[in-house]
């Protein structure tokens, strides 16, 4: 497969368009199965009652919030290193979805915290670092929109995204490094999960579903970005008479 072919936005637009229906279908199917297993197969938790079912959206949203940040930072880094515009566009398209999942992780977390801890919010390391992640996403988007020159906006927001990636391991390991009210990981790569089989299944299926959703919505947003950038006057090259005539 000739991947260089997809490094130009002209080829990327139809390519993304062909992928979107598949990822949409996968997202709908997986989230449907995840909800079914989560509500009808997974048993009631012995200590947390049915409030624990919030984790079927909370944990996938929290994972996506961190995962999308890392992916956004990688695209930003590739963009800076290779000066590749499609990479910057990917980073730009990912940010709003990442911010959305960060908000959802915080919101559903407080919905879980109130009945379980007795508090909507506590300033523990996990919650605080996740809140900072939300501010990072918002900051990256605001920085981009505050710079008129597209290439400067691309580079500035890419640098901010790269610097901020330091917060992701802090969020992930916060429950180990500090005494947090937030519980430790129930599922990790290195150890057997400390939850019933159906609970883990529902959580993982929902997580993959959210992942597919993120890809679909990000590709769709990137197609918008491609078209919107075409509309922008290009300051990089000298305008030709036909360009100007076309723009008018």
């Amino acid at each position: 497969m000739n991947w260089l072919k997809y490094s130009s936005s002209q080829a990327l637009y139809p390519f993304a368009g062909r992928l979107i229906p598949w990822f949409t279908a996968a997202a709908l199917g997986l989230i449907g199965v995840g909800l079914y297993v989560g509500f009808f197969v997974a048993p009631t938790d012995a200590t947390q009652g049915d409030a624990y079912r919030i984790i079927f959206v909370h944990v996938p949203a929290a994972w996506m919030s961190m995962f999308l940040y890392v992916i956004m930072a990688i695209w930003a880094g590739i963009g800076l290193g290779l000066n590749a515009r499609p990479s910057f566009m990917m980073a730009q398209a990912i940010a709003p979805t990442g911010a959305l999942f960060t908000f959802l992780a915080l919101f559903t977390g407080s919905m879980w915290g109130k009945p379980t801890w007795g508090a909507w919010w506590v300033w523990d390391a996990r919650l605080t670092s996740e809140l900072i992640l939300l501010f990072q996403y918002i900051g990256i988007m605001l920085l981009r929109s505050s710079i008129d020159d597209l290439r400067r906006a691309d580079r500035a927001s890419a640098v901010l995204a790269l610097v901020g990636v330091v917060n992701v391991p802090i969020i992930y390991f916060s429950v180990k490094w500090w005494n947090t009210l937030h519980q430790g990981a129930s599922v990790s790569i290195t150890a057997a999960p400390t939850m019933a089989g159906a609970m883990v299944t529902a959580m993982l299926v929902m997580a993959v579903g959210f992942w597919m959703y993120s890809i679909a919505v990000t590709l769709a947003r990137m197609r918008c970005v491609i078209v919107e950038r075409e509309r922008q006057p290009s300051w990089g090259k000298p305008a030709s008479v036909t360009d100007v005539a076309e723009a008018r």
Partner: protein
Amino acid sequence: MQWGSVAEFFAMGGYGLYVWTSFGVTALCMGGEVFAVWRRAAAAAESRNEL
């Protein structure tokens, strides 16, 4: 399945308000994002056709 009735299912063992608010807000946000991107794509396509 552990639910005896539909009412029991919606009550979620007394945690219904928290559980359904979580799932409802998540659904609204994701649906809203899809709608926003769809609107943006429609606007982009329109601006393309204006040429």
